[in-house]
């Protein structure tokens, strides 16, 4: 549960559908189409007859901005040019900032000719005690350079939307557009509040033939609102962030995670890393990863992950096997040992002995590979039946012939990190 970016396509669709309920004379028609690798472009043309009648804009819709700066926007194009552009770019790898990703989703909408001086900026942002509405007459790609032109209008979280005084705060330079702009922003803000937005930026919007048209838009929703927004969000899906295709193992753990009530997470950072973690609990798992980095081993940290919420023995077994398989695929080229940190804080009510059962099963399966790869295991855990859980682990060490160092709550939670990596106690 958190703030999550949505596609520009979905945000504009919501605006076109819902904003007229807030403003009397808002008639942005929401002419927009989304194209993925599986889309038949001829079907798009049938469903959206305007694509053949109007000049078009085509751009990737994958949660990254500054598309113009990256040369990833096609303007003033015919339908044939748009198709050609999509066919050429679909599936291409591009570098955006520091992230390499594959272009797989584009949006098409009508091209709205306008001069740069007509581009306006509006954004709404949430803070703890207030929302802040930002407006500038000088929108467009240089907005950050022109930030002194931005008017900030704070709105207390307890304020009623009808109390907000926009008219007197918007720049007088809007002249005869002041009233429609104020009405638009007021409606937009009410929609923002009602529909679970946590960030909304339209940069720019323009007046085309007297009508307001959003040209470029970035939005985040609070996904905790899903229960209340079933109708208003119209079935939108939250896309994966740009550039992060899951590995086979990550996808497998994600699948197990979605099947059970427990939580299982895995992100592979560096498959050649020598330090692997298997930590219970969201809070503790971050602290283990922190400590590994803080002790100077961030380059060796192989994964981030956590399991919590009382996973079944079968779940922890699968999770263990996935990690062991990854970490024992090859030996360290320098012949050094690898480390598996089976860590965790003091559980509230999770039965430690029970959850360790699945871990033990996994370790037994990989006995030979663990020995061949030179894996050293450190365990630290507390909570219900931890004595029994730790005993099982100690016995396992004798059985496997793999060094397993086992500690309980008397040892500081992350001390096994320095024991393993720092070489001393």
């Amino acid at each position: 549960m958190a703030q999550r970016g949505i596609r520009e396509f979905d945000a504009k669709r919501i605006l076109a559908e819902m904003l007229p309920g807030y403003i009397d004379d808002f008639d942005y028609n929401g002419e927009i189409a989304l194209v993925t690798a599986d889309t038949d472009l001829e079907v798009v043309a049938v469903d959206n007859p305007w694509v053949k009648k109007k000049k078009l804009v085509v751009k990737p819709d994958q949660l990254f901005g500054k598309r113009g700066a990256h040369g990833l926007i096609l303007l003033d194009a015919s339908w044939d040019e748009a198709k050609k552009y999509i066919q050429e770019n679909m599936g291409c790898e591009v570098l955006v900032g520091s992230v390499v990703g594959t272009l797989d989703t584009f949006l098409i909408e009508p091209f709205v000719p306008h001069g740069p001086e007509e581009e306006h900026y509006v954004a709404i942002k949430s803070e703890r005690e207030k929302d802040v509405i930002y407006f500038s007459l000088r929108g467009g790609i240089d907005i950050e350079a022109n930030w002194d032109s931005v008017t900030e209008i704070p709105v207390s979280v307890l304020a009623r939307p009808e109390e907000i005084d926009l008219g007197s705060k918007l720049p007088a330079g809007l002249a005869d557009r002041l009233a429609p702009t104020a009405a638009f922003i007021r409606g937009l803000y009410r929609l923002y509040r009602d529909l679970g937005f946590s960030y909304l930026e339209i940069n720019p919007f323009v007046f085309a033939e007297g009508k307001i048209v959003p040209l470029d838009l970035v939005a985040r929703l609070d996904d905790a609102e899903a229960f209340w927004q079933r109708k208003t969000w119209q079935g939108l899906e939250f896309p994966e962030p740009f550039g992060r295709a899951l590995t086979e193992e990550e996808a497998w753990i994600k699948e197990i995670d979605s099947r059970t009530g427990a939580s299982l997470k895995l992100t592979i950072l560096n498959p050649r890393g020598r330090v692997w973690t298997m930590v219970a609990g969201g809070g503790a798992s971050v602290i283990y990863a922190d400590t590994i980095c803080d002790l100077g081993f961030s380059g060796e940290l192989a994964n981030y992950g956590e399991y919590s919420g009382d996973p079944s023995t079968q779940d922890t077994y699968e999770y263990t096997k996935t990690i062991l398989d990854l970490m024992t695929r090859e030996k360290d080229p320098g012949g050094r040992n690898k480390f598996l940190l089976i860590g965790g804080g003091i559980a509230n009510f999770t039965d430690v002995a029970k959850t360790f059962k699945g871990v033990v099963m996994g370790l037994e399966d990989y006995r030979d590979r663990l020995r061949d790869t030179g894996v050293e295991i450190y365990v630290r855990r507390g909570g219900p039946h931890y004595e029994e859980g730790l005993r099982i682990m100690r016995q396992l060490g004798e059985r496997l012939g793999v060094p397993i160092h086992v500690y309980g709550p008397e040892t500081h939670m992350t001390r096994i990190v320095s024991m393993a990596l720092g070489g001393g106690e």
Partner: protein
Amino acid sequence: MTMKDYQLFDRNTRAFVYGFQTNAIQRMLDFDYLCRRSVPSVAAIINPNRAGVHKLFWGTEEILLPMYRTIPEAVAAHPSVDVMVNFASFRSAFETSMEALASPGIKTVAIIAEGVPERMARVMAATAQKMKKTIIGPATVGGLTAGAFRIGNTAGTIENIIESKLHRPGCVGFVSKSGGMLNEAFNIIARNSSGAVEGIAIGGDRYPGSDLLDHILRFETNPDVAIIASLGEVGGTDEYRIVEALKEGKITKPLVIWVTGTCSKVLPGSVQFGHAGAKAQTDLETADAKNRALKEAGAIVPDSFDGYGDEIRRVYESLLAEGKLREVEEPEIPTIPMDYAKAVSEGIVRKSTNLICTISDDRGEEVLYGGKPLSRVLDDGMGIGGVIGLLWFKKEIPPWAAEFIELVLQIVADHGPAVSAAHNAIVASCAGKDLITSLASGLLTIGPRFGGAIDDAAREFKRARDSGLSPEEFVREMKTAGINIPGIGHRIKSVKNPDKRVELLIGYARENFERTDLLDYALAVQEITTAKKGNLILNVDGCIGVLFIDLMSSCEVFDEREIDDVIKYGYLNGLFALGRSIGIIGHILDQKRLDSRLYRHPQDDIAFMLPEFK
């Protein structure tokens, strides 16, 4: 004794628990008992589904807690309660918490639910601030004031609470975002100092109702707190409020703090940690930047979490050396009896059972019929006959035997409205009684004279044959004793007008049963009786009775003793009652549909013959 501003809870704090969280409430009461509180910390439960009372343990004794449906009712009955522990789901956490905040007496609301939308959390936080009240959460386990008050499940098991010395106050005030780390923090604090005074988890969401600084400032003014400890988290800017407070000199006590999430710099930007708020959106929100700023402002920041406990120990020992702190005198700890279920699961106790069941078991994922999972029963197409085999005889009987049972059930299902069972049921239904009562009224007529002939016939024919009586000897014996042979004789049917049902049963048995010995014996008896009178035939009850004995003899799974048990325990009456229930229910429903009025037997159908009054 009234509480000071810096206290949220003391040994007299009483709370409402919203939500029927029986385990959490018991854990709160166990903690109270451990701390030797004089009254339980939970004054009442608010359960929107049910009002009344709920029974809980207070040490070894049991006590009752009142239960109300609504917050206003609870508030009216317990005006001195000032805390609500809100276990409402994310869907109703907002409405119920706002309602609690609007009640003048309630000063503190702890919201446990995860997944409360940010806007709702912000409105709650702003409302609480305006009213000078405190929200802990959402998305938290809560918090605990040592030796005084525990929110819900905070600090886990009783063993852990004792281990972490939370049954009496120490000298550290602790606050973190993470509820999961609260337990670990209590452990670290107990191992490196005299223990915690209080520990609060504000929750991992982006907009918690109270933030780290709110609690740190309470600890600053609380004279029992000598050391303040805190864990921050990557994401958000709340830690900078602590930096400001440090700079402004608002925090004078030693503050040991660490912001977790320093690893985020090596993780791909898109990885979301367990907490909704744990994601840096600007460089300022990174853990490294916050740790640096805190250290510069004068907080005690270790180089990594690994040094966190050591820093607390160092501060504690220096305060001890300076004489600013005294060691805590350890109180005697009362024993909390172990729950029976837990003792059983650990193999510590045993108890002999009062009841035995050998036919079914519903404790697992799926109900077992005679050891066989229901889904297998259905997959194998065992039918009603097969199920009766499992539940009555505890055996998998062959399909032909199961089919025979179903044949019998169909044959005995009904015999018109005039027979005892149907008549009784109809009269009861006409009197306005419900289906089950009317059915019972009909079933109660089944016995020696009605329907019981199946059992009797089976018993008598089997006895006669097994004792070596020839059919002639058997008929003579019964005549001498003056007993009608059960299963022989019909009101209408006769040799010349045979009973179709009997023919059907015999045909089925001849075709499918390995043996029909007792049937043959009964038919030999019929030959003698019908010679005397045409309607003294083997009737349907007798036929079912003898054939059931033949059925069991034909199945290898029954031994002689089991066959005798079937007769002795009235299995066959059961078969009649089961089949006839179908018909009885039909008659009752028939009367209901007809909206029949009360039945009164006509007086002219009764011969009144009373003794003369003298």
